[in-house]
């Protein structure tokens, strides 16, 4: 019984416990497999906000679809609904009340999907594919922020076809994150811009990149008072920079660390360096997870500057990840990210989304 009408019946209904019985490398961590995964690479994942009961996972893929699953407490996943774009979906986000899902696509549009009615309507238009979409909830306004390869960052009140505001960026948007009142956008050519969102969005600062390679993913972290205070930026060179906006001592406080590289200590063979595909912060502990083209995920404690865990290697890159609203679930997607080019793309290869219990493994390491 396939709820997602398209492909060959992967929809085995509700059994979430799919994990392979043999140790084949598609799920070496033996995590829960989400049922009815998309038919092409998964580009983005997002869990529902705390304002909604339950856990609903949204995943966008290169198959032009956005799927919604309900993740039940016993770990079972139930496919719920799906929407389509006319081009690959690159990013998704939830509204703060959990009633709408926003999707951004290569078809240069963004849509608002009302989950109650299961209707989606276009709310944004760019001149190029939209790479990032985020919901902004400010005391005096709410809107959607879309970053596109057309080098603009636009803000949309979903009721109007014209953007509320359009900001020019130096280059194509590659990734972005929003934690009110801060937004960070990383662009091509290692551009990095911080925006402040109070009253109305405006550019706050352009930052010289702490990384020397193409930016790939960014995630804002908060301080102990739950205010955004900095961000983690990942590049294609297996490295993440932790950067504070106003640190007391930038030289000390900001740092980078290497990750997602092969053969750590063996210097005999050249080291393979993989791109960091996504970074997510645990909503409670403040520790972070990175996933890379090497097919591994790692958990880190940025304050203790230590690695908490690295997974076994999956047979495909991990392209997306996210935590649910209370940090108990870590979802990660295993699919091809094009890191080895066109030749290694196998459309027949199955894509996966795994769920892992994240309550324990992301606890911060006690600082010595």
């Amino acid at each position, binding site marked *: 019984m396939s*709820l997602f009408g398209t492909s060959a019946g992967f929809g085995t209904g509700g059994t979430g416990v799919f*994990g392979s019985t043999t140790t084949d490398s598609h799920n070496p*961590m033996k995590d*829960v497999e989400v049922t009815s995964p998309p038919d092409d690479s998964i580009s983005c994942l997002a869990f529902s906000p705390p304002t909604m009961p339950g856990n609903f996972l949204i995943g966008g893929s290169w198959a032009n679809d956005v799927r919604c699953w309900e993740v039940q*407490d*016993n770990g079972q996943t139930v496919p719920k609904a799906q*929407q389509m774009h*006319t*081009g690959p979906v690159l990013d998704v986000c939830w509204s703060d*009340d959990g009633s709408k899902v926003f999707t951004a696509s290569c078809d240069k549009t963004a849509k608002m999907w009302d989950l109650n*009615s*299961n209707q*989606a309507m276009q*709310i944004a238009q*760019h*001149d190029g594919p939209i790479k990032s979409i985020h919901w902004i909830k400010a005391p*005096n*306004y*709410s809107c959607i922020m879309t970053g596109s*390869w057309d080098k603009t960052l636009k803000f949309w*009140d979903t*009721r109007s*076809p014209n953007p*509320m*505001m*359009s*900001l*020019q960026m130096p280059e*194509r948007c*590659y990734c972005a994150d929003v934690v009110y*009142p*801060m937004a960070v956008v990383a662009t091509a*050519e290692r551009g990095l811009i911080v925006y402040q969102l*109070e009253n109305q969005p*405006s550019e*706050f*600062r352009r930052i*010289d990149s702490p990384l020397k*390679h*193409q930016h790939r993913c960014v995630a804002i972290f908060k301080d102990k008072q739950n205010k955004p205070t900095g961000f983690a930026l990942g590049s*294609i*060179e297996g*490295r993440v920079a*932790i950067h504070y906006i*106003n*640190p*007391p*001592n*930038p*030289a*000390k406080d900001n740092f*980078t*660390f290497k990750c997602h590289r092969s053969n750590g200590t063996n210097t005999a063979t050249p*080291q393979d*360096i993989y791109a960091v595909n996504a970074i997510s912060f645990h909503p409670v502990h403040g520790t972070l997870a990175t996933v890379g083209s090497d097919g591994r995920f790692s958990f880190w404690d940025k304050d203790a500057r230590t690695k908490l865990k690295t997974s*076994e290697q999956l047979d495909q890159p991990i392209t997306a990840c996210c935590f649910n609203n209370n940090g108990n679930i870590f979802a990660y997607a295993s699919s091809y990210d*094009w*890191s080895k080019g066109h030749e290694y793309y196998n459309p027949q290869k199955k894509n996966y989304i795994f769920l*892992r*219990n994240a309550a324990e493994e992301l606890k911060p390491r006690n600082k010595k």
Partner: protein
Amino acid sequence: MGRKKKKQMKPWCWYCNRDFDDEKILIQHQKAKHFKCHICHKKLYTGPGLAIHCMQVHKETIDGVPNAIPGRTDIELEIYGMEGIPEKDMEERRRVLEQKTQESQKKKQNQDDSDEYDEDEEPGPSFQQPAAQPQAGYMPPMTQPGMPPGSSAPGMPPGSYSGMPPMMPGVPPMMPGMPPVIPGMPPGMMPMGGMMPPGPGMPPMMPGMPPGIPPPVGHRPGMAHMAQAPPAAGPNMLTRPAMPAATAPSAQPAVTKPLFPSAGQMGSRVASTSTSTGSSSADSQSASSKALFPSTSQSQQTVSGSPHPTPSTSSDPSKPTFPAYTQATASVASPSAGSSTVSKPPSTVTSKPATLTTSSATSKLIHPDEDISLEELRAQLPRYQRNIPRQGQATVSAPPVGPLGGMMAPQQPGMRHPVPGQYGGPPQGMPGYMPGGMPPYGQGPPMVPPGYQGAPPRPPMGMRPPVMSPGSRY
């Protein structure tokens, strides 16, 4: 400075010329980097100590101090922290430091004249300054030499960067080629990352610092943010005795808004085209009751443990540290860095993209050569550009039931006509959709079991009537 310190300058490592906030950290650094046995990783206290250890325990001789710059590898010199440094090297260092100070002071002064920043900003072409400081690392925080001494008033408000009046917070800019301090990092952690020798990149740093910005903004680290933080006196005692004060305390209202100083001011400085003044009223999203899916039963909030609680065996507790970045400067040849920097094409994207250097002797970047993102590369493929839904959507039940998005709503003449014109730049986007007439834009309803069919098959465009009407335009 008043009383001459014993060493007269910040502690620095004789072996690699790096600067540190205090001697304790310097020693930790030395133990971890220079006096560490490469065989068993035991940390010794001195060079000779390391040599003896290797001989006795591993029966191996070492001929030089690891990670030392050429000329400073003498294994026989007994150096511990700042003790044991030959006098001539100390003098040479002092000379070099002074030179740097003077250079940047001069530069500072030159720039002061032409500076057009706000007056209340700490006189500070502090941004251009970084250029003078090679390897200043991250945001070489405000205080630059040449800062009018006045600002170094002793009464440096607590908000001041380090609280140390004359101190240059953050990185000692003068250190030629010196990676910035690695304070207090447990040995082996060397997280000094991000100390990219911005060098040439620095000057343009805040190219367009519009005057409106309160000083703390921009790269004044700790400016507003640190207003509350007790200026960590000790560690921030950064050299530059000659350097007048630190910055920016200037009574910034910033104190109240740690992260982003007065948002209002920010608004003016955006170098962009604001088409309208945002602030629409609070969102009108219907605050639907949380009945998300009509047929769903409420599930509990937390997910009780998954069937596979904490299995994995892959953690490496023995190696808790970040394989850190360390040497930003100097030893560029370090195997870690991998490929060299990306070549930068002119900003036109459309022409053939520049390429990355993806391979070096010691490492290989697993990434296609073109310097564009993986998604851009992939999106170029024809299979992703066909603007028809994939995978036989044709099968999906009903004809395009949902004129979702309103763009493609031929069924709703009333709505439709105004629409194309309204969405920003429809001409660009539209053509893609038009072919094939009514691409089943929204596959939503058909996919879903009846239970979810929230709306009747004719999802009214008028789901959101206000959206389309011209009147609601912003």
